[in-house]
């Protein structure tokens, strides 16, 4: 899908974060942004421009579903919720990520005497 590896990695990560965010309850696009920032305690900076294409891509894949609803300030907004397929996807992604992080962590934590 992407042109080179770093974008791919970022994109994959963003997808996972979006899935996690909506798994906690239906959110509109701006809400997804806020929730990720909130959970990460503002340590993750999300490119706002890439958020919406990501939402559309996830909907295209069938992992989230969008529906029109009322926002907290009484405006029309599109709310996304996790689908069953999305739940499985999030689980798989999280598992992969944890394995990956574990492996990297153990490599980085290796001391010379352990070799």
């Amino acid at each position, binding site marked *: 899908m992407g042109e080179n590896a770093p974008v791919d990695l970022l994109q994959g990560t963003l997808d996972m974060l979006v899935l996690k965010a909506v798994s906690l309850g239906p959110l*509109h*696009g*701006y809400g997804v*942004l806020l929730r990720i920032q909130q959970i990460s305690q503002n340590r993750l900076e999300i490119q*706002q*421009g890439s958020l*919406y*294409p*990501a*939402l*559309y*891509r996830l*909907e*295209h*894949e*069938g*992992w989230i579903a969008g529906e029109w609803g009322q*926002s907290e*300030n009484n*405006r*029309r*907004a*599109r709310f996304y919720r996790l689908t069953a*397929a999305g739940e499985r*996807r999030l689980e798989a992604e999280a598992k992969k990520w944890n394995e990956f992080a574990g492996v990297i962590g153990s490599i980085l934590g290796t001391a010379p005497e352990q070799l």
Partner: protein
Amino acid sequence: MSLSSRVRTWWRAVIRGADVDAQVDEELRFHIESYAEDLMRGGTPREEAIRRARAELGNFAARKEDCRAAWGTRWLDELRADLRYALRMLVRSPGFALVAVGSLALGIGANTAMFSVVQGIILAPLPFPNADRLVFLWQNRPGVPQLDPSYPNFEDWERTSRSFDRMSAVVFHNFDLTAPGRAEHLLGMRASSSFLATLGVTPAIGRNIARTEDQPNASSVVLISDRLWKESFAADRHVAGRSLILDGKSFTVIGVLPAGFHFLADADVITPLRPNMPAIYAERSVNSLAVLARLKSGITIGHAEAEINTIQQNLDLLYPDANRGTGITVTSLMQQIVGDVRGTVLLLFGAVSLVLLITCANLANLLLARSTARAAEFGIRTALGASRGRIVRQLMTESVVLSLAGGALGVALAGLGLRVLLAALPQSLPRSENIGLHLEVLLFTAAASIAVGIIFGLAPALQSARPDVQGALQQVSRGTIGGRHAILGRLVAMQFALTLVLMTGAGLLLRSIRNLWDVNPGFDMQHLISFQVGLSPSLTRTPAETRIGYQQLLARIRQVPGVESADLTNIVPLSGADNGGPFWIGTASPASLPEAPHALYFWTGPDYLKTMRIPLLQGRFFTPDDQLGSAKVVVIDSVLAQTFFPGENPVGRTLTVGHWGAARIVGVVGHVRHWGLDDPGTYNPRQIYIPVYELPDAMVNDFFRTLKLLVRTTLPVGEVMPAIRNVVYESSPDQPVYAVSTMDEVATESMASRKPPIVLLGAFATLALLLASVGIYGVVSYSVTRRTQEIGIRMALGADRARVSRMIVGQGVRMAGAGLGIGILAATTLVRLLPSFSRLLYGVGQRDPLTLFGVSASLVLVALVACYVPARRAASVDPMRALRHE
């Protein structure tokens, strides 16, 4: 991931693109406003907050596009853009578009028309369930591949064979209908009771022929066609039980055939075979009928043929005098119907595909020439970052747009062409009623158009998209003669080669037809009419009455002003009619009838020879006294005389005609080319004339109905025929006059198998010539444009105008000439390799020098004319301006 959600979102993005756009728009706006509100709550001024919210989201339009693209519509959007661009480019160069689309329309149109012929005649299935299991069974003997089986053999096959679900016998027999309604001659059949069931057809109204009705002496019943039901019975739903007078006999209607029922011909009536069968059909040695059968599921033609031949070998042993040496051939119904036509149709389809190749060469030439002209455009696009793939795709879109436009116009042309074509095709062409622009044909055209656009657009596109950015931007290639010219020249040569092949084919056929018309058929074809009359039932109650009825009819016709002479015959030369059987010299009958020599039997009246102007070589022809009760006499033709009485006088000798008897030979007449003007004399060339009034009583009533009247006139047919009709109707109004044709028409129809190839090859050759001249003109004038500077230099250095035009014309003629060499080689090879073509030739060699020379000369002439205009333009180049042009 889920396929259904992908398809759903993609489909929404494609079909409701505007809705999706509006949705993204609303979402993004909501985002900006919410974000701006949050910022304002943090103390940012309103203006600043909105600006920042917008800036962080980035380019609004680009985001919208990204979202749509996320639903998988990118390629579609690009295709749409490519299409828009392609159309704009074509509109901007209308000349190019017109020539390209016009060429393609002609090429694809011709192919569409021809494919609809292939589809209708060869590919479309026959209109019967499991038609591939329907077969004919034929007898054969050495030298004669296809003989009608005899009725007794059919009965034995039907009873003993295990390979067939059903077997039935059928004889075409035409009836004279006298009531209800106006007297009319009807096509009809006599069929065994299993006939319709074998085909898998059930009557639309009423019932099928019962087994008990197909017995000797059963009551007379009839099935009628949908047409007859509507015209003679006013579509009466309760028609069963009403009656019909056929050949003077009353038949009870039992059912109506389904509308559109067509088995080899459009029969209007079907009667049971057995009760209406002439007595002589009971003879095992009389080849009388067609046997149709339905193979059991899973049984191949080969298996069935092996089984039925084993059965026949036993029959040969049981009945050696009637059967010895008889084999059985099983042929599929389709093969029987389409036969030789299949080869001709495929040949013509091959020819028309050459026309498409010529068209495609034009397209490739145009695209190549244009790609050179557009080099700067692609250079700029590449410089701006377009990938090679994108440019190739853009160019392919353009060529496919061209070919599809050509295809669409081609279908319209094919519609017109087919109408002309169907009118020009001979009546005898089988299954021509199936030909039309059906769905299969349109699918073929669409596929062919897209394929042409892709295949012939690809090479020019790849060449254009060569990553030669700098060169293209600087346009240094101007004026040089590069590889592209070589390709253009080769394409033109190929066009001329293919055109020569098509023109040679058409030329050889034209020469053959000319030669055929010069053939002496053995009789005088001018001022001769043939027709049939159904004599009134009131005049044909007994055999004696029938004979007198026809004699009186002839006497009246001979009185008509403009009639020189007239008489009866059972078969008309060149009409394809066959009526023959065994004969032997002397009276001792041979051991086996099938092994005895065979001859054509002409049952004629005494004035036949005079009417036909066949020369009498020895002895005499018949007189009115040669009739039943007098001594049996025959007249033989010169071929029989030379074969069986070499160096002797046959007059006075005895000859026995099978199933009739021993007779004295009283005369020898000239041989007639019965089987066609191109008759090579290999099949049944011997001819015996028998006095028609000596026909035994038992056969008279059935046989006389099938007799033809031949009339020699001194006035044109159009003037004589109405008077003859009047005479016939005056003697009795219930006598139909039908099957009227001049001998010229009969001769023309005998050459019918050559007509479609001549008409179509001629049309294809003309198209090819047109396309090739457009091709050479385009390439030469393009090269003149490219060489303007070079020509300027040449002229500045002293070349005069004549020399420049000679150079340009020379270039064109060299391209064409190379093509002619290859074309002559290809044409002579193809003629040799294609028997379906060479069998159409007559009196002309496969490499006829006159045809080859004439065709080559006219092609050189066309090349000269096509090069003349660009050459004149080259000669009028102003050297100063050409040099400054850079």
